[in-house]
C-alpha cells in the first residue's frame, strides 16, 4: 500500500513510540503446512473446508485425554477453536484438577462452580458474584439426562455456548473478557490457546501447485468487498479464517505499487480482525517472515505459494508499532508467486495451495 493510499484510508496519523525488540517475537506455535480442501459450489465459487488444529505436544502432555476429546467435540459442535476452550479450562481450574473450592463441589468465593467455573446463582461468597450463567448456557452435553456443572462433559459445551453467545468465533478477545472480566485473563487464555494449537489437521505440506489461467481472472472474496485473482480466492479465505484476519486490499488498479501484485489480483493486505496483532505476526511467520529477512520481504524464505511477506521491518508495512506516521497504514502484505505478466492482466500461471473444482 502506498503512503498516499494509507493516509487516505486511515485518516489518522500514527506516531510510533517504541516497542521492545523482543516484541517482534511470537511464541505461538508455527504450523508445518496447510491445505485447503475445496468443494464445488453451485455458482462455481470454491468453498473451502477449514481444518482445525491438532493438539500440540504441549496440549497432549498437559490436558487429560478425556478433556482433550471434550474440548475438540465442543469446538466442532459450536464452531469454535477448541484450543481456546481448552485454554479457558486450563486457566480456570487446570482442567478440573485444581484442589480449590468450587471445582469438584461447592462454589468458590465468587459463587462459581465446576471445571469451567460457571456462576450458578450462589451469590457472593467473599470476592464477587459470578451470577448464574449456568441457568442460561448449561447443557446436557453427554446426554445422561442432567446438566451437571461439575461434569466436564456438560460444563465444556456449556462454556462453548457462553463464548459463542459472547462473540466467538468472530471476536475471541471480547468473548473471553465476557467470560471473566480481566485483561490479564484474556492474555493468559490466548497464550495457552497458542501453546495448545498444533499443526492444522489433515494438512500435508507442499501442496502448492501452479494453476494456469483458465479464462476467469478476478473473483470476489466471499464476505468482503474485495476481488482477487480467482485462483487464490480459496487461499485468501483460508488465510483470513485460519488467522482471524480482515482483508483490506486485494486487486487494485491503482494506489499500490504499479509493478507489484495488487494490480494483478495476486496480493493481499490484511489486518487482525480483532485488533490482536499477534494474529498477523503468526500469519507472517507461517509464510516465512522473520526479523533477519524482513527488510527484503523474506523472498528467499517465503513458504509457497507466497512470494514475499512484507511486515515489520519492511518500509510502509507492519503492525502499529512498526508502521509509523505519517502515511503508514499498519498491515501485513502477502504476494503470491506467479508468472510474469503486464500490470492489470491475469498471470499465465499462479502458485496456489488449493485445488479448484469447477
Amino acid at each position, binding site marked *: 500500500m502506498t503512503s498516499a493510499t494509507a493516509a487516505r484510508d486511515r485518516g489518522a496519523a*500514527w506516531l510510533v513510540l517504541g516497542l521492545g525488540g523482543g516484541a517482534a517475537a*511470537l511464541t505461538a506455535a508455527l504450523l508445518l503446512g496447510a491445505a485447503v480442501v475445496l468443494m464445488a459450489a453451485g455458482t462455481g465459487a470454491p468453498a473451502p473446508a477449514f481444518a482445525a488444529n491438532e493438539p500440540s505436544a504441549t496440549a497432549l502432555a498437559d490436558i487429560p485425554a478425556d478433556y482433550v476429546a471434550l474440548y475438540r467435540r465442543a469446538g466442532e459442535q459450536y464452531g469454535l477453536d477448541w484450543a481456546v476452550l481448552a485454554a479457558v479450562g486450563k486457566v480456570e481450574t487446570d482442567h478440573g484438577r485444581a484442589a480449590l473450592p468450587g471445582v469438584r463441589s461447592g462454589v468458590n468465593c465468587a459463587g462459581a462452580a465446576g471445571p469451567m467455573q460457571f456462576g450458578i446463582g450462589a451469590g457472593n461468597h467473599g470476592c464477587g458474584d459470578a451470577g448464574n450463567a449456568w441457568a442460561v448456557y448449561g447443557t446436557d452435553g453427554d446426554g445422561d439426562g442432567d446438566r451437571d456443572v461439575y461434569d466436564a462433559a456438560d460444563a465444556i459445551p456449556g462454556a462453548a455456548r457462553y463464548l459463542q453467545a459472547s462473540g466467538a468465533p468472530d471476536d475471541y478477545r471480547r468473548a473471553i473478557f465476557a467470560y471473566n472480566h480481566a485483561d490479564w485473563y484474556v492474555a493468559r487464555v490466548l497464550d495457552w490457546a497458542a501453546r495448545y494449537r498444533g499443526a492444522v489437521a489433515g494438512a500435508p505440506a507442499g501442496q502448492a501447485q501452479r494453476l494456469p489461467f483458465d479464462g476467469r481472472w478476478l473473483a470476489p472474496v466471499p464476505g468482503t468487498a474485495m476481488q482477487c485473482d480467482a485462483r487464490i480466492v480459496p487461499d485468501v479465505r483460508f488465510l483470513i479464517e485460519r488467522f482471524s484476519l480482515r482483508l483490506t486490499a486485494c486487486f487494485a488498479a491503482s494506489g499500490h505499487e504499479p509493478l507489484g501484485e495488487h494490480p494483478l489480483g495476486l496480493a493481499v493486505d490484511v489486518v487482525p480482525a480483532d485488533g490482536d496483532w499477534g494474529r498477523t505476526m503468526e500469519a507472517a511467520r507461517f509464510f516465512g517472515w522473520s526479523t533477519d529477512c524482513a527488510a527484503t520481504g523474506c523472498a528467499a524464505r517465503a513458504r509457497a505459494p507466497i512470494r514475499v511477506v512484507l511486515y515489520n521491518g519492511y518500509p510502509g508495512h507492519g503492525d502499529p508499532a512498526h508502521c509509523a506516521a505519517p502515511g503508514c497504514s499498519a498491515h501485513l502484505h502477502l504476494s503470491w508467486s506467479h508468472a510474469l505478466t503486464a500490470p492489470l492482466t491475469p498471470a499465465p500461471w499462479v502458485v496456489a495451495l488449493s485445488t479448484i473444482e469447477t
Partner: protein
Amino acid sequence: VARRFAAAYARWDAGEHGADLARSLARTATPQLLARVQAQQARPSVRPARPLRLTVNAVSHDAENAYRVPLALDGPPASHVVTLVVTSTVNGTRVTSVER
C-alpha cells in the same frame, strides 16, 4: 497520561484495588471510565493474576481531537491488549475509554 493510566490499570486489572491505586486511576481517567473499570470484577482463577506488562506503542490523532493509544504486551507475544482513547477535558487530559 496513557502511560500512567496503563501502569495503574494493569495493577487494578490484576486485582489490586487499594485506595492509592484508585486515586492514581482517577488522576488519569474520567469519572465515567473509572466507574466502569471499578465495576469490572474478575473471578479468581487457579493461578493468581499478575499485572500485565503493558507498553504504549503508538499514538494516533483522530478527527474528533482524541488520541488513540494502543497498548500491547511488553515482550513476546507482542499482542495488542486494549486501545485507550485520550481526550482533553475540563479537568485536564484524561483517558475516556478502554477499547478491546
